[in-house]
C-alpha cells in the first residue's frame, strides 16, 4: 500500500509543479494574447476582414516595398511596389528599415503613424478600416525579419488574417502571430489619407506624425492633415501653428491669420503665435498691427528672442520703403 501511494503522490506533485511552472511560462510567451482572452478591448467588433486591401506578391527579399505598397494603395495612392524599391529598400541589408517604412508614404502625401506596441491597438486600427503593416521575426533558428499587412482577424477562431509574402490570405493563430510580432517590439504602422486620424492616435504622437508628413513636402496634404488635427484637438497649439504655417506657404495669408488669431485667444502669451501672426500680418501689408504684436512678444528670456528681433527688423525695413 505504502509503496503504491508514494509514486502517485510524487506523480501528482510533479504534475502540479509542471502546471505551476508552465502556466506563467505560457503567459509570458504570449502575454498580450493572454490578456485579450480575459479583457477584449471595448467597442471593437469580434470579426473584421478588410477584403479590399490589395495584394502585391513580394519579390525576393522585398517584403518591405510590397507591404508598404499594399497599405499605400489601400489609402488611395496609385503605386506599385516595384516603384517603391528605390525609396524603401537598402541593397546591402537586403531589406527595409522601419524608419524608412515610415518615411515613404509621406513622399506621397500620406500620413504614417506608428502604433503603440499593443495588440489591442492593432485590432482597433483594423476594426477602424486601417490595415496595419507589421514587422515579424519568422525565423526558425536565428532571426528572419519580415513585413506583412494585417487586414483582419476573427476572435471566435482566434485567427489573424495577413497579406504576406506570396500568400494573399495567410491565417495565423493569435498566439503564433504574437510570437513573431513580439520579437520586433510589437512594431506596427498605419498609412492614412491626410484628412483621417488613426483610431488609436494620441495628440502628441499624431502631431509628431504630421511633422513627418510636412517634411514630405506635399503642402496641400499637410494643410488638410493639420486642419483635421485641429478639429479633433481644438486646443492644440502645435496643430494651429502647423496649419497656419502651411496655409501661409500655400499663399492663403488671410486664412493663416484667422487660425493664428484663434490660437492667440487661447494662448495669449505664446511668443511663437505672436511672432508668426506678426509676420503674416506684415506680409498682408498691415505693418503697424504687426509691430504691436511684436511688442507683446518682446521678452529677453524667451528662446525665440532672436527670431522675434529678426521679424521686427524685417517689418521695420518694409515700413521704411
Amino acid at each position, binding site marked *: 500500500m505504502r509503496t503504491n501511494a508514494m509514486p502517485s503522490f510524487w506523480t501528482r506533485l510533479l504534475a502540479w509543479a509542471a502546471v505551476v511552472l508552465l502556466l506563467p511560462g505560457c503567459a509570458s510567451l504570449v502575454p498580450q494574447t493572454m490578456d485579450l482572452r480575459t479583457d477584449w478591448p471595448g467597442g471593437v467588433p469580434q470579426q473584421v476582414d478588410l477584403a479590399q486591401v490589395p495584394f502585391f506578391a513580394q519579390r525576393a527579399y522585398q517584403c518591405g516595398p510590397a507591404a508598404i505598397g499594399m497599405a499605400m494603395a489601400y489609402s488611395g495612392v496609385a503605386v506599385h511596389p516595384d516603384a517603391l524599391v528605390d525609396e524603401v529598400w537598402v541593397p546591402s*541589408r537586403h531589406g527595409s528599415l522601419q524608419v524608412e517604412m515610415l518615411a515613404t508614404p509621406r513622399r506621397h502625401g500620406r500620413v504614417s503613424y506608428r502604433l503603440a506596441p499593443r495588440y489591442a491597438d492593432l485590432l482597433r486600427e483594423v476594426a477602424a478600416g486601417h490595415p496595419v503593416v507589421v514587422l515579424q521575426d519568422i525565423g526558425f533558428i536565428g532571426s528572419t525579419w519580415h513585413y506583412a499587412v494585417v487586414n483582419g482577424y476573427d476572435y471566435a477562431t482566434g485567427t489573424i488574417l495577413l497579406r504576406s509574402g506570396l500568400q494573399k490570405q495567410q491565417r495565423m493563430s493569435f498566439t503564433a502571430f504574437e510570437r513573431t510580432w513580439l520579437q520586433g517590439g510589437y512594431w506596427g504602422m498605419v498609412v492614412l489619407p491626410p484628412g483621417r486620424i488613426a483610431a488609436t492616435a494620441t495628440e502628441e504622437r499624431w502631431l509628431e506624425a504630421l*511633422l513627418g508628413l510636412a517634411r514630405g513636402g506635399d503642402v496641400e496634404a499637410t494643410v488638410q492633415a493639420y486642419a483635421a488635427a485641429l478639429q479633433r484637438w481644438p486646443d492644440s497649439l502645435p496643430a494651429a501653428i502647423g496649419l497656419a504655417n502651411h496655409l501661409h506657404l500655400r499663399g492663403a495669408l488671410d486664412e493663416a491669420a484667422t487660425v493664428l488669431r484663434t490660437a492667440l485667444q487661447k494662448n495669449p502669451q505664446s511668443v511663437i503665435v505672436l511672432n508668426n501672426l506678426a509676420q503674416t500680418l506684415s506680409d498682408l501689408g498691415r505693418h503697424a498691427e504687426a509691430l504691436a504684436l511684436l511688442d507683446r512678444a518682446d521678452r529677453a528670456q524667451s528662446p525665440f528672442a532672436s527670431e522675434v528681433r529678426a521679424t521686427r527688423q524685417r517689418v521695420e525695413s518694409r515700413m521704411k520703403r
Partner: protein
Amino acid sequence: MKLVVKRTTCRVLVASLLTLSFHTAQAGLIGADQVAPARSPGNDRALVLGTLDRAEVAAQLQAAGVDPRAARERVATMTDQEVQVLAQDIENAPAGALSGWGWAAVIVVGSLIWYYAIRK
C-alpha cells in the same frame, strides 16, 4: 592659430552647406516642431548637429548601396528624431527581408510538420 581659424572656417562652411541642403524652414515663421516644451529650442547648435546627422545617415545609406540622390531624398522626409534613431543603428536595426529561399524553407518545414505530426 591660422590653422585653427582655417579649420573652423571649413567646418562652418561644411555645416552651412549641409544646412542649406537639408533645412526647410520658412522665412520669418517659427515651425510647429518648436512648440513642444520637451524639445530643445531651435538654437544653432542643435540645428547643425541635426543636419550633420542627416548628412551622416544619407552617407550611410549611400554606402549601403542606395543611389546618392535617392539617399538624400529619403533622409529629407524623416523627422529629427527618426534621423537620430537611424544614425545610431542603421547597421543593426532589423530589416524586413524574407528571401525566396526563406519561403522554400517555410514551406518545406511546414509540410514536414504536417506530414509527421498531423497526418501520421
